[in-house]
């Protein structure tokens, strides 16, 4: 299992794709805020974990994989969808990390400052996400 960074992947991204992500991200943040304002933080908090940019992200992964295969002279539709599936599996590990992030906020914020709790919660997200991802790889879950 090779872990690394491939900066060349950034060249696959097109300006309209980044714009789409920006618009979706901004819209979901505003909608979550409006729900909190209208219906209270209990319902609004649910939407802070709404997978608003998940579907566009998967679609972009699929499109880029198809383009890579096409450039190599192959039809890569099924391969591209499998790659999107792998990304979705990674997102499931990230979602458990997101639950850890929220758990740390919920339990620590009443007794600690936000400046301390937020980095701690972010570290919990990263740790639990990577741990779940590794466990899934290691045990083929």
């Amino acid at each position: 299992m090779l872990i690394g960074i491939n900066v060349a992947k950034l060249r696959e991204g097109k300006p309209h794709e980044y714009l789409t992500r920006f618009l979706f991200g901004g819209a979901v943040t505003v909608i979550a805020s409006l729900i909190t304002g209208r219906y209270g933080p209990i319902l609004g908090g649910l939407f802070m974990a709404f997978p608003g940019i998940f579907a566009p992200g998967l679609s972009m992964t699929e499109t880029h994989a198809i383009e890579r295969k096409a450039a190599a002279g192959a039809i890569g539709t099924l391969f591209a969808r499998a790659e999107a599936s792998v990304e979705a599996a990674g997102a499931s590990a990230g979602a458990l990390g997101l639950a850890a992030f929220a758990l740390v906020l919920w339990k620590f914020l009443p007794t600690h400052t936000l400046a301390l709790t937020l980095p701690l919660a972010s570290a919990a997200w990263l740790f639990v996400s990577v741990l779940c991802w590794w466990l899934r790889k290691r045990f083929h879950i």
Partner: protein
Amino acid sequence: MPDLLARFLIGGLVVILFSIIGDIFKPKSLGGIFAAAPTIALASITLTAHQHGTACVTVEARSMIAGALAFFVYACAVSFILMRYRPRSLIAAGALAPIWFAVAATLYAIWLRK
């Protein structure tokens, strides 16, 4: 209105930042964890705490646990369907979105509302 505009701009920028990080990581499954990064929370928590106090953020965080668990079930379902049947990913993710709402609504009813 300025508050909503600030949330929109910060939310959009945080999402782009995390998506760039997710794009460059390999293998793809590791990059996938950034698709479930706490982007909305990071974009709005500081503003919410400033406006409504940390008690409001604490209540939101408890609900966010339920939303994240719903995200987990939804992402697992999308991953399975994509690998098993290979539909278009946008269609699979869109068609299975009710799973997130169903799990979130169930957790809201049995845990959060009490």
